[in-house]
């Protein structure tokens, strides 16, 4: 399949997933005990107010009509208005989503910057002290909760040393990246541990491949053998892993954004949950699923670039 064809095919595949999630959310919201309207307005709201909101949100119509309206809204990109912020959900998410995407992308870059060279050292020095040291440190990283790491980094580097801002988000790109650095580092820690572990194993496996012997028999420099022959092949499986973790990275962003007061969709999700802002929760759930699907697609494209066997 051609590259363009594959992209198109994968984009089409997102549609059923999207619909399935949409249906699930719709059904869950209606099956769960309690009335979202009275939940939103609180126990002391007047019947009048409750009825007005019910009407506004379409809860007085039949389930089927509600479902059709719901899907129709999604198709038009209309998710209604946030009950907490009083602005269209689309606008709200449009403002917040780029922040989270930047955060997770930065975290991925940081994770790779740590993991790739160290996985290399650990694999080449397998079962000797550098390997044990690297694996030990990363094991601690893997076992550390995101919020805890965030708190420590925040206190040490922002509050005490004042190298970084304590929270929030900047105006210019450089300023934004500076604001996002600590949260991204926090998010990167356990992610880089997962990448390191996988890549180390992959490198060890590739090192025993016959094409590495053949490369040696050609009299190539060790540096070229390791980078061109070993690393490139080992990265193929690791790229898949990075893509598969897009979801957990977004999950981590929820916590990181809460700790560092970053105005992204993760924090919006938590805030909306506490505010019972159902339109936002529904829309975010769908949007995050799409983001993850797109991350899978990007992963596939990178893998195609790395491994010509996939490109067919």
């Amino acid at each position, binding site marked *: 399949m051609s590259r363009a064809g594959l992209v198109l095919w994968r984009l089409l595949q997102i549609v059923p*997933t999207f619909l399935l999630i949409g249906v699930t959310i719709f059904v869950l919201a209606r099956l769960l005990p309690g009335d979202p309207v009275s939940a939103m307005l609180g126990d002391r709201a007047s019947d009048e107010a409750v009825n007005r909101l019910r009407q506004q949100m379409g809860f007085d119509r039949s389930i089927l009509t509600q479902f059709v309206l719901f899907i129709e809204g999604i198709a038009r990109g209309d998710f209604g208005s946030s009950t907490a912020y009083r602005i269209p959900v689309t606008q709200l998410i449009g403002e917040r989503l780029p922040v989270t995407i930047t955060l997770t992308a930065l975290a991925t870059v940081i994770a790779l910057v740590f993991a790739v060279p160290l996985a290399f050292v650990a694999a080449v020095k397998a079962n000797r002290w550098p390997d044990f040291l690297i694996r030990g440190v990363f094991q601690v990283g893997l076992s550390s909760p995101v919020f805890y790491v965030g708190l420590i980094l925040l206190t040490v580097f922002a509050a005490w040393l004042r190298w970084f801002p304590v929270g929030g988000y900047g105006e210019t790109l450089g300023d934004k990246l500076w604001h996002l650095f600590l949260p991204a580092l926090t998010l990167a820690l356990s992610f880089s541990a997962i990448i390191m572990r996988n890549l180390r194993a992959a490198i060890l496996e590739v090192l025993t491949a016959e094409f590495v012997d053949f490369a040696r028999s050609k009299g190539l420099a060790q540096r070229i053998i390791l980078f061109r022959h070993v690393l490139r092949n080992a990265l193929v499986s690791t790229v898949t892993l990075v893509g598969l973790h897009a979801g957990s990275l977004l999950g981590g962003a929820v916590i990181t954004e809460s700790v560092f007061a970053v105005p992204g969709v993760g924090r919006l999700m938590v805030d909306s949950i506490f505010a019972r802002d159902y339109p936002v*929760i529904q829309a975010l*759930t769908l949007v995050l699923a799409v983001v993850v699907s797109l991350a899978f697609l990007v992963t596939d494209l990178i893998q195609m670039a790395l491994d010509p066997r996939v490109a067919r």
Partner: protein
Amino acid sequence: MTARMPRLRLPGSLVAGGAILALMLVCALAPGLVAPYDPIAFDYTALLQPPSGAHPFGTDQFGRDILSRTIAAATIDIQIAVFATVGPLVVGTVIGLLVGYYGGIADMVFGRLVDLVVTFPFLVLVIAIVAVLGPGLVNMYIAVGVVGWVFYARLMRGEVLVLRNHDYVSAGKVLGYGEARILFRHILPNAARPILVYWMTDMALAILLGSSLGYLGLGAQPPAAEWGVLIADGKNFFSQAWWITVFPGIAIILAGIGFSLAGDGVADLLDVKR
């Protein structure tokens, strides 16, 4: 020299992980015996004390002993590790077994479900469900259970697909064994090893998840001592009294390392590739 005795060699990681988990378990089951103070007793003569001989981990803003609180919290966190995973373990294993063995439409539906679950940020899903059900440990177990079983089922299904074509399964059919007997007596024990190893990892993840929810205020509710809740309690005092936050965090990391090492050890022992 006498002949060498055949000796079961335990992997070092299993011994180390087991030791850490044993320590955690003692704290969890009998916090009263290990903790030097009452974890909820206020002591206004010792507020925000740094670590000392009397209070190795210091005290918080109410004079409560952090060491005792960290130990007491083990009860809830170890409970989370077990309760949040046993349900998914059992349900997922059985579903994976059936889906893998019988295939068909159920298998196809399962495939779509797996796509759905891996596409979605697990933590966000759990948070969303907890938010709807209301904060608290029981609701957290339900939320984790709703999604968590899929990972076990996927793993189990993969194992069953491999085992289904093995000779002893065909032999069992030829001998006229019942399906249930083939499934539970022949396939399950052979497919169980990777599940067991994954369970270890999953318990570590459960503690991370449980403490994260506790930190966000969606998991265990104060005044119950839970590591994530303790960290949340201490975060506003971090600059003056780092010990309130730091020590419960170390407990989480230690528990995670314990489960990971034990998982590696079990994998080594059972010769499971990870």
